[in-house]
């Protein structure tokens, strides 16, 4: 034997009439490969001659009957809240009313007793205002030192760009909020309650 036997790729090539010089010379000297190629050809010819089969004559009608008619999208059904969710919602509203009421009472008292209010709140407001201002300054200083700051500044350089960026951020925020809301209103499973 002069050369190694034919590879699977070479056999495939032969079936597609792609015959390389190596294949031709090998087949001339190797009876084993020549016989295998011949038997492979017979198998492939026999396979190619096999008929297609027909389904029953009413096949098409049965398929058509099985297709779901196209419908408009179903209306979104708002999930009914569970008793636990309703109670939590009531508690949250109660807490908000209490906090809001407290704040309103505080403002009302401060408006009617301005001297007293300033005496009590003045130093605290001064301290907290100073702290807020210092934090803001450090945040801005930190941001301006970042490598991405010039590109962000350039991107927002014109009012139109700034408006577009603002709209984009607002859109993302609204999208996230809607998604979160949807997650929160998914029907709760009552298993184990």
């Amino acid at each position, binding site marked *: 034997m002069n050369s190694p036997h034919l590879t699977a790729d070479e056999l495939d090539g032969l079936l597609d009439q792609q015959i390389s010089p190596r294949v031709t010379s090998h087949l001339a000297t190797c009876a084993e490969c020549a016989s295998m190629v011949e038997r*492979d050809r017979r198998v492939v010819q026999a396979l190619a001659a096999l*008929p297609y*089969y027909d*389904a029953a004559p009413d096949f*098409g009608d049965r*398929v058509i009957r099985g297709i779901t008619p196209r419908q408009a999208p179903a209306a979104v059904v708002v999930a009914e809240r569970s008793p636990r969710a309703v109670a939590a919602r009531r508690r949250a509203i109660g807490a908000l009313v209490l906090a809001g009421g407290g704040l309103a009472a505080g403002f009302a008292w401060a408006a009617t007793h301005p001297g007293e209010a300033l005496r009590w709140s003045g130093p605290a407001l001064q301290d907290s205002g100073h702290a807020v201002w210092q934090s803001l300054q450090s945040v801005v200083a930190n941001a301006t030192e970042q490598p991405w700051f010039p590109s962000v500044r350039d991107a927002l350089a014109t009012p139109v760009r700034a408006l577009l960026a603002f709209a984009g951020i607002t859109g993302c925020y609204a999208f996230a909020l809607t998604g979160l809301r949807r997650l929160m209103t998914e029907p709760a499973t009552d298993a184990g309650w």
Partner: protein
Amino acid sequence: MTNPTPVEWGALSDQEVVRHAARGREAAYRELIRRYQRPVFSLIYRMVRDRELAEDLAQETFIKVLNAIDSYRPEYKFSSWIFKIANNAAIDQLRRRALNTLSLDGSPHAENPDAIEATTLQIGDPQESQLDEVTSRELGSQIETAIGKLRPEYRSCIILRHIDGRPYEEIAEMLDLPLGTVKTYIHRARNELRILLGDMRE
């Protein structure tokens, strides 16, 4: 599902027919069924070897495809999509019912001679001469028997490659297999068929 303008369905590509089908036109559904009924049914029939079951699975395949026609992505061939669903249906069935043994002489579920006759694989073209029919039936029957003895994965690969004439790349896409694996399966399937047919003739 009315047809406002006459359409030469035969002249349209699969993609164009699918676009009409996505608008709910019954004629487009029927055209897709006409184009793919025989190859899809034949693939499933050769896989499961049971006519009644093959009809059910082919029907299921078409219903699934036509109900989901909106989700068809035109960058892929429609034929790849439908064959993929048909092959999956057949493989699932074989796994469920362990039907991957040959029943060329009728369904294993057939309970009387009429049912056996009705579910027997029909080999040979009815228009051939009697002698041709006998030879063709003999060879066809032998090769159908041999195909039935292959592993299901080899079976779908060899049917798609050498009976349907699909290219290797399309078969790989249909069966979600790497191209090299498809080539190996087809090569092994041919080896097995060669051996099985040799045994049958001896």
